[in-house]
């Protein structure tokens, strides 16, 4: 008997479920960055706002990359619902701390996909997801650089404005 499921699907179906969950996480992450950008915009922190707008775009690109991968390989990608986006922050430092927590959570989730791929011999998805493993390392490093600025320069008055001026350089 022909293996119709395998003929139609190149990836493991449980891995596909994890990838769909990852799509939802990337979409959620993109929306959180958008809320952070809005907070920065309202507080005259233009460079930080720009940084988070770009982050929001990047997270959406990540989501689309996974979305396309699932559909290209015979699976079904599901458009995610995005709920519970926080908009209230007390400081720019708190925003970057939240951003780092967010990135760490995404990294852990990506690593869980790698573990699952290895468990079920889904080498194609493991190969695909390696790009995200590297990307997450870079994302964490960038946010850490921003937090280093708070350690060096403090978290009040003019130092916030000076940190904001240095935000474009943390991605270099």
């Amino acid at each position, binding site marked *: *008997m022909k*293996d119709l*499921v395998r003929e139609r699907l190149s990836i*493991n*179906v449980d891995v596909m*479920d994890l990838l769909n969950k990852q799509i939802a996480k990337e979409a959620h992450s993109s929306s959180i960055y958008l809320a952070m950008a809005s907070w920065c915009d309202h507080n005259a922190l233009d460079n930080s706002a720009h940084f988070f707008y770009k982050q929001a775009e990047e997270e959406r690109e990540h989501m689309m990359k996974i979305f396309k991968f699932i559909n290209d390989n*015979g*699976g*079904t990608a599901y458009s995610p619902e995005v709920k519970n986006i926080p908009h209230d922050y007390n400081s720019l430092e708190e925003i970057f701390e939240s951003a780092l927590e967010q990135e760490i959570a995404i990294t852990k989730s990506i690593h869980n996909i790698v573990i699952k791929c290895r468990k079920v*011999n889904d080498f194609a998805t493991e190969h695909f997801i390696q790009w995200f493993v590297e990307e997450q390392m870079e994302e964490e490093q960038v946010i850490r650089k921003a937090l280093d600025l708070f350690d060096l320069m403090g978290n009040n008055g003019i130092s916030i404005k000076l940190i904001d001026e240095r935000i474009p350089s943390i991605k270099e």
Partner: protein
Amino acid sequence: MRPEMERVLFKSKYYTAYQPEKGRCFFVEIQGRIIRMSFCQLLAFRQKVSAINLDAHFYSDLNHSGTEILVLCNREHIFILDTKEVIDLKVFIHGIFEKSSASTLVSA
């Protein structure tokens, strides 16, 4: 119409999945009805079954009726399932995919 000429792909207590010798589709028997499904529809079926909260069936404030309404194939079919049927449906859908080499992805 029962697809006599098709091979049984997987059978659980209440449901049976068939696969024809030719063609790229599946037949699923639910409550005595045979439904033809493309692979895409089978994945959508799987997604709907996975989304059913089984725990809610055991807490009357979350699921008063103890039933589940399942709408399949672009609203072409509708089924009302009780708790036992839902439990078996989860076993059934898992079994269909477990049978495929897509669950291991390497040669035996």
